[in-house]
């Protein structure tokens, strides 16, 4: 294992790769891990800079004792007759920008009892990033027991190292999009190893035209929609990039102008991450769509958002730019989404479509994708069931014991 000499620890300082690889896992919900997560949460809540970022505040809030207890109770109740154990060694490939979703998955893997080897890109390791910094500090300040089950490393791209870690691990968790997943899959897992991957995602909104027209809550809804779509420059995996209207053409025509008028006003008021270059990029995207597919541009007062009306064939195609750029589509019934929904469809922010309609659609059409359907305002909320994966279950194994009580 000579090539492993090239592996550098970001945290804990002075850790040893062989020791980490030989470390035995803990039981799920080990007190040392719970304590660590609570301490991380308190560190986030105590930091004035962290408090300026809603996603860090949300993570800090999630990390509190009462929530972890709730997760533990649910976990224990899932398979009352079986024993849950950690999978063993979890090898995580972090995204280039260490973001909160990735940290949730790491924390859940620690709660699962796994030993965690995290590969951070050299770029991310050098970034002075608030979340990164706080995480590292909290690890360093932890007990030997806790420090033994986490190692954040970096190494220049070297397939032999990734091969070695992949063969050694029990579960591999790959963030970073399609390119990364394909690259990492060049390294085989051991026959018993398993993998969770997080390729590129596409998220959208679906709104019932009549429901919008009949709503007396438009300003609040528009504000929620802005929060869903304009944080992170509209570049989060759950950010809606498209809006699909359900309804009759006349209702849709009326609802559309009214909806975007409200959203533009809410976007202007919220002023989330405005960029001059973004305005030019959105203008470019408008005209690109005009030339490519004869899209029409929805007239709006400002460039805080930009909307083009497109033929349904474009539903699911990447937009080309973020910062508040939307493609708008129209269907008469949900069923029409069935053919368009690809495997990478993640979040649908929905308004005016009852749960029963969604259930009927999903069961009848059996679309390839859609992981979650949430109301406006909830698109960016993390849930331990993410991208169709129940983290705690996927990161543990279930042991059946059929033996006398004795």
């Amino acid at each position, binding site marked *: 294992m000579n090539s492993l000499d090239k592996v550098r620890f970001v945290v804990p300082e002075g850790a040893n790769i062989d020791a980490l690889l030989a470390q035995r896992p803990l039981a799920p919900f080990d007190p040392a891990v719970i304590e660590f997560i609570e301490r991380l949460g308190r560190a986030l809540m105590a930091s004035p800079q962290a408090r300026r970022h809603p996603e860090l505040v949300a993570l800090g809030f999630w990390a509190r004792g009462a929530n972890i207890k709730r997760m533990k109770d649910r976990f224990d109740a899932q398979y009352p007759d079986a024993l849950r154990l950690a999978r063993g060694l979890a090898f995580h490939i972090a*995204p280039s*920008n260490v973001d909160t979703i990735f940290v949730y998955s790491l924390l859940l893997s620690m709660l699962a009892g796994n030993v965690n080897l995290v590969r951070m890109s050299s770029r991310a390791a050098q970034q002075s990033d608030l979340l990164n910094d706080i995480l590292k500090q909290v690890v360093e300040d932890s007990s030997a027991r806790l420090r033994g089950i986490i190692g954040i490393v970096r190494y220049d791209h070297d397939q032999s190292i990734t091969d070695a870690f992949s063969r050694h691990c029990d579960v591999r968790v790959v963030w*970073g999009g399609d390119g990364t997943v394909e690259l990492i899959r060049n390294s085989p897992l051991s026959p018993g190893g398993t993998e969770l991957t997080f390729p590129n995602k596409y998220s959208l909104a679906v709104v019932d035209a009549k429901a919008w027209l009949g709503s007396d809550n438009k300003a609040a809804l528009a504000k929620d929609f802005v929060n869903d779509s304009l944080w992170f420059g509209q570049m989060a995996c759950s950010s809606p990039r498209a809006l699909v209207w359900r309804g009759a053409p006349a209702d849709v025509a009326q609802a559309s102008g009214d909806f975007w008028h409200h959203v533009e006003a809410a976007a202007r008021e919220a002023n989330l991450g405005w960029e001059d*270059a973004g305005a030019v990029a959105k*203008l*470019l995207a*408008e*005209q690109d769509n005009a030339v490519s597919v004869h899209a029409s541009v929805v007239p709006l007062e400002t*460039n805080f958002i930009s909307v083009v009306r497109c033929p349904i064939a474009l539903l699911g195609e990447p937009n080309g730019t973020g910062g508040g750029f939307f493609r708008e589509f129209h269907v008469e019934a949900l069923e029409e989404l069935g053919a368009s929904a690809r495997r990478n469809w993640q979040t649908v922010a929905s308004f005016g479509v009852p749960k029963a309609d969604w259930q009927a659609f999903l069961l009848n059409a059996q679309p390839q994708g859609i992981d979650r359907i949430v109301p406006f305002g909830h698109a960016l909320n993390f849930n331990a069931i993410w991208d169709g994966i129940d983290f705690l279950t996927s990161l543990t194994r279930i042991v059946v014991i059929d033996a006398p009580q004795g």
Partner: protein
Amino acid sequence: MIESFFEVPVYDLPKAEKHAMLQAELRELTAFHGIECEGYRAILDAYGPGDLPGGADAPLIPVSMFKLHDLSSVPADKVFKTMTSSGTTGQRPSRIFLDADTARLQTRALTKIMTSFIGPKRLPMLIIDHPSVVKDRRTFSARGAGILGMMTFGRQHVFALKDETMELDWEALETFAAANAGQPIFAFGFTFMVWRHFIQQLEQSGRKLPFDNAILIHSGGWKKLEAEKVSNAHFKQRASDLAGFGRVHNFYGMVEQTGSIFVECEAGHLHAPVFADVIIRRPVDWSECDIGETGVIQVVSVLPRSYPGHSLLTEDQGTLLGEDDCACGRKGKYFAVHGRLPKAEIRGCSDTFASNQ
């Protein structure tokens, strides 16, 4: 009537007259390209009446549109020359289709502009680059095209650099200097080339060039020099001290609207020639900025006849400084360019990790 633009002085038309002439011509161009260019028609049709960004007379087309689509208003067999921009890695370069007429108009415009600054006579010319940059016509870069275009205004062309090593060709420089002792000369080069491979090499060598009454014209953007903390004033000072360039003129232009050359006057301001103009736009809603207000630069020109490039929104930030009242005495709008619009790094949970290797 395009000819009317060549019958008036290039920097002496008062604003009321210029606006009227320009607006009428631009309106005609918009209508013309709307008929002759399918893609441009689609853009016009995409916006409701009264909703065209920048107005219906000369709606804004972002320059990068020419990277995404081939926009031409003439049939393929009428294309005389295709200009390309230097595309950044991973990006398709812009493609600009010129027919013979447009190419001719652009040469005439450039001549009017340049001769107004360097005089009517062709001066001995020093090119601050190396010969191979113009050799291979097939792989015509924007740099090569720019140099070739400027070479029309000089004679007895000499290249200051030997080859791709960017070493100064001292022999050629000394011969050139000797042959033109006491005579005015003019030099042209791209800004970073002039600084890095000419001025700085002179600095390091400890030698000076004996030019007197010399004009330096340069273009290409200040970004690299800003990174090295070199100001326009410092650049001019060294050019004067080390090589005797008493007159230094920067110019702003882009391949997407060739012929739109905005030259720096003696007062340090960029000037719009009679065939073109500059409008500064507020990115929040594309309304026009006031004098002194910074915004995104729009450039208009009456020259693009073979492709819809007559009204373009750049990706540069600028400020309109005034109109018709510049200290240098020239009429027309004068402005400053501050550089590219700043762009924040893209964040998101689906970064392409693989491409960061």
